[in-house]
């Protein structure tokens, strides 16, 4: 089975970026709780990469903020849990890992990323799934925005309950549409010789 046209010759710099990101994530994960200064050093390293790569700061911070509930969730689990893990350590660890992955995603295109993973012999079925997921996230986001606009255009009440009911209906429709589109995409793949 072949993977959907993913480049066979990834640029060296992408491979180095991916390897560096994995190393940094591993380092953050394995840093002992007794050495909080190491986290500061890892955070400084991420910051240096951000400055060096001239990634725009605003989108990076926005993405970090969007994902912050996961960090908060992990920290909360530490507070409530009985393992005795310090919640601050967990928060620092997750933040460094998330920031690393966000910087990687902002400096490496999905095409390059998939090329590196392919070179690393990641199973092609997983790569195809990742490529399709990335491609259709945008289509679904557009579809959901269009449905949202259509809903707003015909919403004449301020009732919150009604708003939630229609929102839930839109989400339901989106699932149905996504599944129908998946069938059509599969047909289009078969039409061009795909053999699953």
């Amino acid at each position, binding site marked *: 089975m072949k993977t959907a046209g993913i480049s066979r010759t990834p640029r060296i710099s992408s491979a180095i970026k991916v390897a560096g990101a994995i190393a940094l994530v591993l380092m953050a994960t394995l840093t002992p709780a007794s050495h909080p200064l190491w986290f500061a050093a890892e955070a400084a390293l991420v910051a240096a990469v951000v400055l060096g790569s001239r990634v725009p700061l605003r989108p990076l911070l926005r993405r970090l903020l969007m994902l912050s509930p996961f960090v908060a969730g992990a920290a909360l689990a530490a507070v409530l849990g009985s393992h005795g893990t310090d919640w601050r350590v967990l928060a620092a660890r997750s933040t460094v890992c998330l920031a690393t992955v966000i910087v990687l995603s902002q400096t490496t295109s999905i095409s390059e990323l998939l090329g590196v993973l392919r070179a690393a012999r990641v199973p092609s079925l997983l790569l195809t799934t990742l490529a399709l997921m990335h491609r259709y996230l*945008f289509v679904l986001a557009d579809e959901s925005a269009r449905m949202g606009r259509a809903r707003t255009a015909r919403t004449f009440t301020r009732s919150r309950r009604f708003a939630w009911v229609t929102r839930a209906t839109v989400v339901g429709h989106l699932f149905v549409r996504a599944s129908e589109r998946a069938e*059509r995409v599969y047909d289009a793949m*078969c039409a061009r010789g795909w053999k699953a």
Partner: protein
Amino acid sequence: MNAAIEILSLSFRYPDGTRALSEVSFRVAEGECVGLLGPNGSGKSTLLHHLNGILPERLQAEARAVLIEGRAVTPQNVSAIRRRAGLLFQDPDDQLFCSTVSEDVAFGPEQLGLPAGEVETRVRGALEQVGLSDLAGRPPHHLSTGEKRRACLAGVLACSPGILVLDEPTSGLDPRGRRELIALLRDIPATKLIATHDLELVVELCPRSVILDRGRVVADGPTRTLLNDEALMLAHGLERPHVLQHSHPHLGADRVEPLSRSSEAVPR
């Protein structure tokens, strides 16, 4: 002339019981360009999906209702048939599933098992043919609808099919995109079957048309004769196109059609 597409009494029912095609029969000769017309829900797309073996989901070994270049669309032949009959889908977002335009165009040739050098040559050639060489590295969601449609066509052309099956190729295009696509299609020498509501396109490109309604072939004949028959057009949810109703200063006298309301029997 040899038949590129032969449809012999094809009937099809969807699993929910909806009858989509009833006893459809016609043939398309090699090199011919045929328009497939009909109102929404008449079975045009369902019919096109049979030509590439996408429908029915379970192909039967003994089925001989659809023949592509003399080969029946059966499980044994479906790979060879998909090499010969390229299908352009109605929604370009269904067809462009890779991360960049060039990767998507490369998908078909890669599936054909061609060597990397040949894949690259075909991708470059197909993109050049549709005028998208500059956008090769772009992700599909950054393209306009017209560009997406041309990228889809490049993906099909890269497989060098002898037969092009096009489902609503001009839907959603602005006038310039539409003109560019029509010019492009005119220059492609393959056998073409074009399902569309764009009657002016059919007048321009297809000397012959087939009209489907409720899953049945209701007319098959010269495009200008069928499309000039107002009664026939209105009876099947269509209309006489503007280009056949008026003379046009940019067209030669031979392109002007009389405003007659033909009630002659429609050739089958």
